[in-house]
């Protein structure tokens, strides 16, 4: 028995070591320092009310950057963690949403749920549970008079309208997953219908415009970068949404999205997007989906192998400003002219790259 076990370990060890190929140690060290510098920047940019940019969304992202950092900050570390939590709790609304305005209610609530969950503090359970119910209620379904045939069915939008998109969808699903929504909840099945209708894969997308490159577009029939083209940020959001919804990584939809990522592998820009729009959104989504997909290396369609952790860390370290911040200098669209937002996203991405 012992021999069998030893043999098994001997056989498995190289595979485990290969699968856990470490980051370049020099890069890891530089990335760790970049995270500290980014968090230092955020700490001294925090408003007196505990928020960043007076926004629940940005505050939630920045808080998450602290909580998931290698130093694992928590509410015992002081006011700089407690105050943003209190800021978010002050914006809990009667309907369960967590938002300072009627705009972006879905996004704000989703980000806040993930951050509150990351505190691990059971005091927030009721708020999280109510916010989870709010997010579930936002999903477009029969309750709003939509049938499964409609292109919006199963999607989640900004929360102040009735049009869903893949960005809000992915944020909402991330929050539902983080807050441990039951795997058999019908929300996931409905979500898959919308996710499939946003993918350029005609075999699983019944929309007439669907292409076949496997990537994702912003919402069925529309991309902000023109036509219905696939682009990086949303394709990573689509891939991770499929995984959140319980789809196996060997499913053809997941594989098609991964193939698009292989064919368009880059960290120089947000592939398929105009003028580097949404670049830091892309980096954060890239880190999340690559981590969730579980491959240490990505082999692109030309056969070149890329350690995504090394590439991401090297790129983000090179983009960091002298004050520790990041900002999208190429396009301010989707709030990326805001250094609080970009810094939070960059640190979240680096945290994931460094995580075991």
């Amino acid at each position, binding site marked *: 028995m012992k021999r069998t076990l030893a043999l098994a370990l001997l056989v498995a060890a190289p595979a485990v070591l290969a699968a856990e190929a470490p980051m370049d140690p020099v890069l890891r060290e530089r990335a760790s320092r970049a995270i500290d510098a980014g968090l230092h920047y955020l700490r001294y940019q925090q408003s007196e009310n505990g928020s960043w940019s007076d*926004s629940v969304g940005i505050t939630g992202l920045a808080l998450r950057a602290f909580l998931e950092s290698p130093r694992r900050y928590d509410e015992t570390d002081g006011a700089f963690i407690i105050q943003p939590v209190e800021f978010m709790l002050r914006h809990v609304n009667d309907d369960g949403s967590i938002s300072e*305005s*009627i*705009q972006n209610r879905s996004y704000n609530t989703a980000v806040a749920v993930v951050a509150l969950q990351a505190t691990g503090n059971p005091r927030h359970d009721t708020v999280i549970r109510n916010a989870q119910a709010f997010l579930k209620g936002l999903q477009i379904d029969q309750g*709003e*008079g*939509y049938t499964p045939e*409609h292109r*919006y069915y199963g999607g989640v*939008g*900004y*929360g*102040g*309208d*009735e*049009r869903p998109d893949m960005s809000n969808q992915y944020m909402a699903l991330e929050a539902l997953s983080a807050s441990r929504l039951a795997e058999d909840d019908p929300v996931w099945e409905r979500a898959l219908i919308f996710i499939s209708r946003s993918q350029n894969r005609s075999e699983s997308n019944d929309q007439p415009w669907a292409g076949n490159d496997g990537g994702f577009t912003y*919402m069925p029939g*529309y991309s*902000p970068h023109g036509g219905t083209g696939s682009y990086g940020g949303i394709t990573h959001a689509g891939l991770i949404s499929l995984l959140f919804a319980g789809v196996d990584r060997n499913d053809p939809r997941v594989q098609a999205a991964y193939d698009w990522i292989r064919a368009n592998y880059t960290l120089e820009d947000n592939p398929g997007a105009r003028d580097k729009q949404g670049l830091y959104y892309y980096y954060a989504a890239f880190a999340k989906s690559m981590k969730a997909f579980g491959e240490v290396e990505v082999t692109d369609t030309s056969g070149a192998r890329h350690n995504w952790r090394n590439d991401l860390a090297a790129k983000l370290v090179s983009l960091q400003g002298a004050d520790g911040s990041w900002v999208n200098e190429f396009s*301010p*669209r*989707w*709030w990326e*002219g*805001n250094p609080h937002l970009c810094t939070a996203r960059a640190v979240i991405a680096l945290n994931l790259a460094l995580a075991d």
Partner: protein
Amino acid sequence: MGHPGEWLACLAVTLALAAAGGFAVTAGAPPSAPPALALTVGSLCSLLGALLAPRHLQRSTPGLARPGLARLSWSALVGVTGATAAALLAALPAHPALFLAAGITLFTLTLTAAGDALSRRFGAPGAAALVTALFVTACAAPLFLGPVAELFPERRWLLNALVWMSPLSHLAPLLDFDYLRTPWFYEHARLGGYRFGYPPLTVSATGVAALAAWCHRAARLPVHSERIDQS
């Protein structure tokens, strides 16, 4: 009808109706898009309420007793009618329907007062055309001024000013409706990707009421030729 101003007003209303109809259809999706439908009904009622107002409200004569009260009564009637129509068509709950009634009332009041003030200078048909054109243009401001805002994306006050110019931005929050992120506006106004805020309720109410009072006051002032006659 025969005056060019009346034809222009008629054309502008037709265009506004077509645009509003298109918006109501595309903003949400069938079979229900309650906030979009209610917003469309609300903005159209304000416009039609001003255009179809009794003649003496469109051009008040110096001898008319309590013109402000008459105008307010008419506007309130339009407001209640519009909100009732929106409630029936869009299954609007009582709370937002009441807010919408107040919003339509204020906008109708402002538009009739503006029409009155302008009619002193341009005549009733011309004033109707101008009021219609101004209202429709203001509603569309986020569309054609969006590219200007994109040049200064970090100037939040500029983005807000641009958004607040549109009457739709004052009516939409009454319905808890983020209309600039509906598909059509999101694709064409391009403001949906930037950080802006809708006006708070108190700011909206105060601002529109002040504008109505100013227009009403302007309508009561004697025009240049009347001042000469009086002297």
